[in-house]
């Protein structure tokens, strides 16, 4: 496929995912959008240069990860996760039947997400973006078994926070 077509298609499909991943890394929303766009342009440059990238989507997240790591060093581009994202979450439009219980449940979930380690949030975001576990490991430069461990602990904590019972 022509690089422009591929990027246009991928941009439509995955830009929100890349944006969410950068948020999960703690990048501020305004900066995350810039970096997400930059990630697609870097992928385009590689493809336009004639390079073959077998898994463009995974490559894209890898670039976004590197850009996010760099942004991490800039105080203006980086804030603690809970302040950057949760403040921006819209009020949930709960029906009367959900009411207070639903809101409290989601607040518990939000607190639980904020309490996860940065890597746990990142693996969740990548997995939810459709990356396979080995791709997540390559993106974050960690072992596959570590990815499994992060996911297992994270989903257990979220389930517990949502009031589903069980144990971590």
């Amino acid at each position, binding site marked *: 496929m022509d690089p422009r077509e591929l990027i246009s298609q991928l941009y439509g499909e995955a830009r929100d995912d890349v944006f969410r991943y950068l948020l999960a890394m703690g990048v501020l929303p305004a900066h995350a959008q810039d970096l997400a766009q930059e990630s697609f342009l870097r992928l385009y440059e590689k493809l336009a*240069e004639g390079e073959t990238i077998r898994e463009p989507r995974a490559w894209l997240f890898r670039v976004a990860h590197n850009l996010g790591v*760099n942004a991490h060093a*800039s105080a203006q581009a980086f804030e603690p996760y809970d302040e950057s994202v949760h403040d921006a979450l819209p009020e949930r439009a709960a029906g009367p039947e959900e009411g207070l219980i639903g809101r409290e449940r989601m607040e518990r979930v939000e607190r639980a997400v904020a309490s996860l380690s940065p890597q746990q949030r990142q693996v969740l975001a990548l997995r*939810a973006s459709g990356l396979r576990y080995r791709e997540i490991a390559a993106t974050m430069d960690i072992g596959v078994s570590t990815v499994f461990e992060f996911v297992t602990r994270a989903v257990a904590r979220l389930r517990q926070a949502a009031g589903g019972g069980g144990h971590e």
Partner: protein
Amino acid sequence: MSRHLNPETLLRWSDDLDAAGRAAGERHLAECAECQTRRTEIAEGWSVYLEYRDRVPTPSAWDNLEAGMARIDGRIRARRNPPARFGAVRRWAAIGLAAAALLALYYRYRQIPSVQAAGLLRKAVAVAQPPAPGARIRLHTRRTDLVRPASLPQGDDSAWARLFAQAGYDWALPFSARSFDGWRGRLTDKKDSVELQPADGDTGAPVYVIRTSSESNPLASATLVLRASDYLPVRETLEFRGSDALEITTAIPSTAAAAPAPQPLPALPHAAALPLAIRELRALTALHSIHADLGEVEMSAADQTLTIRSVGLGEARRDQIRQALASADGLDGVELSFDNDTHLPVEGGRAENPVRSAPESSLRASLALKLGSGVSIDEAIDRILDTSDAMLAQAFALRSLAARFPPEAEAALAESDRRTLAQLRDDYSGEFLRRFDRLAQLLSPLVAAVPPVKRDPAAWQLRAAAMLAAAKSLDAALSAGFASAGAAAPPDLMVQRLEQALREVSAAAGGLR
């Protein structure tokens, strides 16, 4: 009963567990309530996360990437067309001796002569205006001295015209960056050099001297001198094989009066000629919709004809431009001229991550110190310089728009066209300001915050020129501070220069916020 399924197996259940693993897991799950429960719990946890994730707001508007991709295309074209002396090194690289060493010279690709020349010419083409009515140029050789109109209609059959045609150089408008760039772009072999001279021998002003030579073209070498402050041509020297060197300059009026009678001038349209102005506006809007209005094409108007020219575009991009123009209302009769592009086959051997190890400039070292070891200084500087490039592109576009639609021409437009013009203006200025804010943020480890500026009631057309001038000063300061190896000025002076340039841009653009 077999051993319990491990967390890995349960997590991979949904997608990348192979068939054998899944079959074994299914057999185990059928008889193990504990594993069934754990699998359900994992699914529930995931469900909670996905519910949370769906509530995280994402941007409602995203930039179109076309402009960025077009810039990248340009960079790639430039990289694929390196000067001949690098070709020899690449051959060595191909046998595995020196690719890394070659790339180590590439501290910044804008420093490679071919790329630097391409970048300067791009800027010069972007700021160029059609010659004013009555403008003359002087063509001087050892034996002849001729004054002629700066722009001639096609169809001249003089000896000079034939010589220029053989070389592929535009005789109709020979003293222009566009003609130089067009000739240079067609060369299959070329060698560039670029020099910044602090004081030109004729004008005393700083100038860029771009020299391109070819082994195969009838025009063996061409040298274009551009004023550093505004990229306008100062002097051009063409050395045709077997002929005397031809020097072209702007003819001053007294010279013109003493010269042979000039040929009739082609009539140039008045900027406010309404039908043409509206067609220009619509063409610009169409080009803007696909982000082709930032130096990628050049639009000119003469004799009520609108001409859009470009060099080096790929077929897909040409089609996009054709379609965008075809879909615009009332835009019949636009002449499109896509010169044969200069795409070359991809050369192998380009390393994935070129090493940039030029001597450190003073600001580079300061910035590296401020950012700390966790940040790639190369990437940080690339981002700074790219942001400045993007600012310049918007400033050029805004200045061109202002030149096409001076206040009186704007006032003559219908209300709907005025709104269209305002939208274009706001798009350029908005993007300019967005990039400027980003640049100020990127430079914040080094420089003081730029103070807010009061609104300026001057017409936007006047501010556009000031913005472009200020953006160029800022770009020059950045290049001197970051892209030039071994900058002579100490860091604190470079920082002061940067802060001053930032304040000037802020002041020039203040009225647009």
